[in-house]
């Protein structure tokens, strides 16, 4: 009896352990040669629908067929992630910190430094060998655009495209308010003046420039950067490797936020604070509650694209137009420019934890070959990194690229950037929410910078 009890308890204790081994043994016996998974932020009939279609209908069948021709039974799966960019980054970090994750991952370029320093991702040639340099695509991707997926001299993935930022506006609301079209403001005051006219004409929140932590990187890129560049400054001093902490330009940028959201209520501040604020801003633009929205070209390509969830009833091409974001005064923008823009870059990386590194590289290269990239251009024209692929099929997209790329700058590809970006979002939030004055919020931001990079790398004017 006693022995029985002892044996039983030992067995109970070991049960989970044996189960583990059993599961491991099962995994090893896969029938096909190999299985690869791609993960993207995208859902069929939801966010980034076009990319899902491209991968499911173009990439996967074509790649599996090519493999079959070579006598290899390769299956490719797509994991559709429906959450926010921030949630996807969190998922990646957690997966990779325990050595898991999909083989090919859609990646935002500015995540790379943080993941590299954490030791989660590795250069392409380390994962798949020097064969990666034999790929023909390198000849048509300029050095500068390879860096989208690079850090510290190494290349970690292939960039798919880049983008530019501008003001989208509703032509129907402008006409109703008696504002002449096409509209192109020359200064901040022009923008504010237009917003006031629209407000008088009954548009509830005429001007929306992103602020706050809830929107994450969309606040930094579409909001803070666009205003700060207009005030003549970048967040980072590339020559001296320092971060701007307390400056007149930052103060001016925050002051215009205060003017828009607090003093004149030209924008809807609750959208900037709500957890689902970005979607709400798309909805409000669709419903004609917002007349001017600063966004990237993803907004045009995907958010208000024909047939999408947020397309205005009268149709994107009939009621949506765009204007360049002006500097505070003509010539007062970053680098003495009249207009400003900033570009991000997205692409795909190979997870170093993959069991099939060479095959994963083949798939990654295949996705970025001419044929597949052209197939995507047919579904959704965009600015790609390949010189041999024009932005075609959408004249608006073409003109945005043509006019704005010359003004556009980029984020510093540095590991501290992500944290500093959050600090900047918080700074705008504190002003919009009236927790602090622009001056106080800027001082608190500079303190955050001290903590992140050390006060010797923070510029105080």
């Amino acid at each position, binding site marked *: 009896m006693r022995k029985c009890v002892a044996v039983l308890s030992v067995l109970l204790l070991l049960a989970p352990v044996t189960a583990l081994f059993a599961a491991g043994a099962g995994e090893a016996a896969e029938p096909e040669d190999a299985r690869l998974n791609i993960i993207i932020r995208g859902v069929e009939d939801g966010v980034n629908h076009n990319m899902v279609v491209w991968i499911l209908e173009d990439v996967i069948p074509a790649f599996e067929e090519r493999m079959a021709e070579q006598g290899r039974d390769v299956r490719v799966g797509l994991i559709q992630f429906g959450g926010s960019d921030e949630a996807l980054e969190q998922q990646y970090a957690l997966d990779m910190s325990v050595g898991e994750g999909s083989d090919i991952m859609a990646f935002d370029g500015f995540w790379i430094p943080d993941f590299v320093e954490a030791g989660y991702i590795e250069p392409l040639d380390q994962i798949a060998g020097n064969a990666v340099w034999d790929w023909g695509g390198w000849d048509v991707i300029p050095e500068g655009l390879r860096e989208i997926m690079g850090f510290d001299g190494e290349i970690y993935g292939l960039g798919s495209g880049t983008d530019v930022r501008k003001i989208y506006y509703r032509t129907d609301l402008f006409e109703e308010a008696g504002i002449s079209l096409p509209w192109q403001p020359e200064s901040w005051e022009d923008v504010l003046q237009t917003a006031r006219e629209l407000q008088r004409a009954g548009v509830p929140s005429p001007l929306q420039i992103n602020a706050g932590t809830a929107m994450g990187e969309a606040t930094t890129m579409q909001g803070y950067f666009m205003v700060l560049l207009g005030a003549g400054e970048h967040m980072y001093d590339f020559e001296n490797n320092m971060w701007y902490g307390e400056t007149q330009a930052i103060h001016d940028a925050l002051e215009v936020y205060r003017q828009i959201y607090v003093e004149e209520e030209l924008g809807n501040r609750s959208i900037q604070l709500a*957890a689902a604020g970005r979607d709400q801003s798309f909805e409000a633009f669709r419903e004609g509650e917002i007349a001017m929205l600063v966004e990237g070209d993803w907004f045009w390509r995907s958010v208000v694209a024909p047939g999408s969830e947020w397309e205005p009833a009268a149709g994107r091409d009939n009621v949506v137009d765009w204007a360049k974001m002006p500097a505070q005064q003509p010539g007062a923008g970053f680098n003495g420019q009249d207009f400003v823009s900033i570009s991000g870059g997205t692409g795909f990386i190979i997870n170093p934890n993959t069991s099939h590194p060479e095959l994963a590289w083949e798939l990654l290269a295949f996705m970025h070959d001419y044929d597949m990239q052209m197939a995507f251009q047919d579904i959704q024209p965009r600015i790609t990194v390949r010189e041999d692929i024009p932005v075609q099929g959408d004249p608006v997209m073409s003109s945005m690229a043509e006019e704005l790329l010359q003004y556009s700058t980029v984020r510093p590809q540095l590991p501290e950037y992500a944290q500093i970006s959050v600090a900047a979002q918080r700074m705008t*939030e504190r002003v919009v929410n009236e927790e602090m004055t622009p001056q106080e919020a800027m001082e608190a931001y500079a303190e955050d910078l001290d903590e992140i990079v050390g006060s010797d790398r923070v510029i105080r004017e």
Partner: protein
Amino acid sequence: MDDLTKRGNHILSVRAGVALLVPAFVFIGLFLFFPFIWVFLISFTNRTLLGAAAQDPEFVGLGNYLRLFDFSRWMRSGEFGHSLYLTVIFVIGSLIGQVTLGLAIAFAFNRRRGKLREIIYTLVTLAWILPETAIGFTWTAFLDGRRGTLNAILGAFGIEGVEWLLEFPLLSITVFNIWRGTAFSMLLFSAALGNIRPSYLETADVAGAGPWQRFRDIMFPLISPQFVTALVLVTLWTFNVFTPFLLTGGGPAFGSDIIAIHTYRVAFQFFEFGRGSAIAVIVMTINLILAASYLFGLKRKEVAT
């Protein structure tokens, strides 16, 4: 145990007893004690999930703790003090709401049967046992400013709606938490009230006591142990509750950044494991104090009876 063994009327031997306890101890050690030590150790490092400190965390001594108690920034939005302040309001509000409401329902239906009682008890209990995620979505839909059910109902009476989760985030999650947790107090108090001997109350009636006197002088003293239990347990649970995250995500602008959400955001949204662990250690300490006071209270009562 020893006494029993000596007397020889035991069911199991000491060895068998120990053998039966070993799995429990191993599991507690593995899943409770080990993570606790782990978190405690990490709280003295600058470990992160991303960036260089993910690979080579450095020992920073009490740095994380000193940073939490840096009083020059203590009450700014998104900081520890601010979160603690919100938590105290949230806990006190929830506590008063849950205990009063639970007691009121239990009192109203004391010694009564009938459909109304069954309906109310079922609904209140249902609110307690339904899955959190489902509840989270329902409440978001209920409180939504643009198309929420609550504003629709108010609109029917000609009252203009409010963006509840944005204008009154802390109030919203407090009301939500009261709704969610009242069942516990209600069940506890109705059981306690049911155990009071009818003769006590009858005697009071004969002596000419009014309802309030009956409650104050007879019922309340008899249920006071349960009252203390409710106070401590509800405080403990509310202090640790994370479900409001599903309603507000801790926002807007950190307006509902209660301590459980704060810990999560620091550790898993801003990826600062070191500082997140330091917060967790402080939270665990507060929990231990609360739990100890509860157990101490129980002990004293046992001695008294």
